[in-house]
């Protein structure tokens, strides 16, 4: 996703909320908590959208808790076997786990940011071959009407666990395989005739 001022997707992605704990009182902002308080009180915990969280954390008005999708537990699971983690379960169907991670990185300092970055890259690398493999299998299977491939549980679970970005890649790879096949077939025909 292009990080452009006018990018609809990039703007909507920043509606993702994270939990902030306030370090100070903020007058007249109590409504952010959805309650009837006039002010935000120090130590209160509120879910804040990313676009608003940046300035709060940068100005040191609030701390944030590393959200669940990037918690130690999830990281351990990813370390053990990245392909067995359902990213979509962490960020919701169609949610962007990688995009969320990149936003979290912007809230962190050098070393923790680097750690998140490593988790993102490593996870992406270890899952990508499976994404592409499955996409190719699917493209091949759908052409010949065979449904055998991809029906076993592990493959299916993996496919359902793709995050939005991986899903896009899956679709692209699938389309790509279909087109290559079609191109190959038509050019074969042309050569024979």
């Amino acid at each position, binding site marked *: 996703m*292009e*990080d*452009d*001022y*006018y*990018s609809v997707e*990039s703007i909507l992605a920043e509606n993702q909320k994270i939990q902030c704990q306030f370090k100070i009182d903020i007058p007249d902002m109590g409504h952010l908590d959805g309650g009837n308080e006039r002010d935000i009180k120090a130590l209160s915990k509120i879910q804040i959208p990313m*676009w608003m969280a*940046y*300035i709060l954390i*940068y100005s040191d008005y609030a701390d944030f808790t590393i959200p669940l999708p990037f918690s130690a537990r999830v990281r351990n699971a990813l370390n053990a076997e990245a392909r067995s983690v359902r990213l979509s379960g962490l960020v919701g169907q169609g949610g962007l786990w990688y995009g969320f991670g990149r936003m979290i990185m*912007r809230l962190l300092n050098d070393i923790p940011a680097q750690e998140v970055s490593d988790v993102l890259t490593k996870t992406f690398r270890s899952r990508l071959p499976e994404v592409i493999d499955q996409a190719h299998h699917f493209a091949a299977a759908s052409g010949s009407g065979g449904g055998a491939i991809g029906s076993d549980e592990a493959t299916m679970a993996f496919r359902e666990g793709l995050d939005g970005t991986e899903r896009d890649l899956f679709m*692209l790879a699938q*389309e790509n395989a279909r*087109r290559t096949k*079609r*191109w190959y077939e*038509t*050019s074969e025909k*042309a050569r024979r005739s």
Partner: protein
Amino acid sequence: MADWLEGLDLEPNDRPRAGPSFVERARHAPDDDYPIADDFGRPNLLGAVEEEEETPFQQLTRHWMNERQAPDILPGQEMLLGRILDHVRKQSDDVQLLRADPDSSEDEHFRIMLVQTEIERVKFVVRSYIRTRLYKIEKYARWISTTAEVHEKLSKAELDHARRYARLTEYHFNQSVLQSLPPQQRSLEDDMAFMPPMIPEPDKLRPVFVHARQECPPVRLPDGTSIAMEKGRISLTPYYIVEQLLLRGEVELV
């Protein structure tokens, strides 16, 4: 060189396109289809050595592909375009004459058809090349109109359009939104923390697939390592890494 085909993939969700015959013919376009002016195809002035000399149409095809893959706007190929179009015109005239000639044989009519088909394909590439540039020019119009270094990469017509387009979008934003906002909120040049700039620029960090057309000096990658770009090698790198090589014609984007 089948990757050439990828370039025809303009719309992700369209049906399959041209078979390989176009590719083949484009690559091996008979020279007599493009009688070349004297200064054509001579060794590149900058010292790039090409083993097989490219026909003008092959050159255009390469620039077209580069333009389609590059995040930035590349120097426009006005002269090349002019010569090719000149030639298209001449060929079209010849075709008209031959068609009108009652003495043309069956065989000649067949040849005429081939020539006409090629003409249509050349025109397609020209059109797509111009439209690709146009897309980027409009996307970055506000940046272009305030950045003098970019101007030399554009033809006069393109630059004029970029300026008009920049004014047009600013006017539209003003009329539709900004003029109704409080005066403090009307600027189109805010510099805000945690937001991308309001005037987008080409993203030179974007990765591109690059094919070395000749032996190139090694390039240094962002992680500090360097890779040799030996002839024929295809690599995936951020655009800025190969930008200079591309401008010198030593590599092409695929």
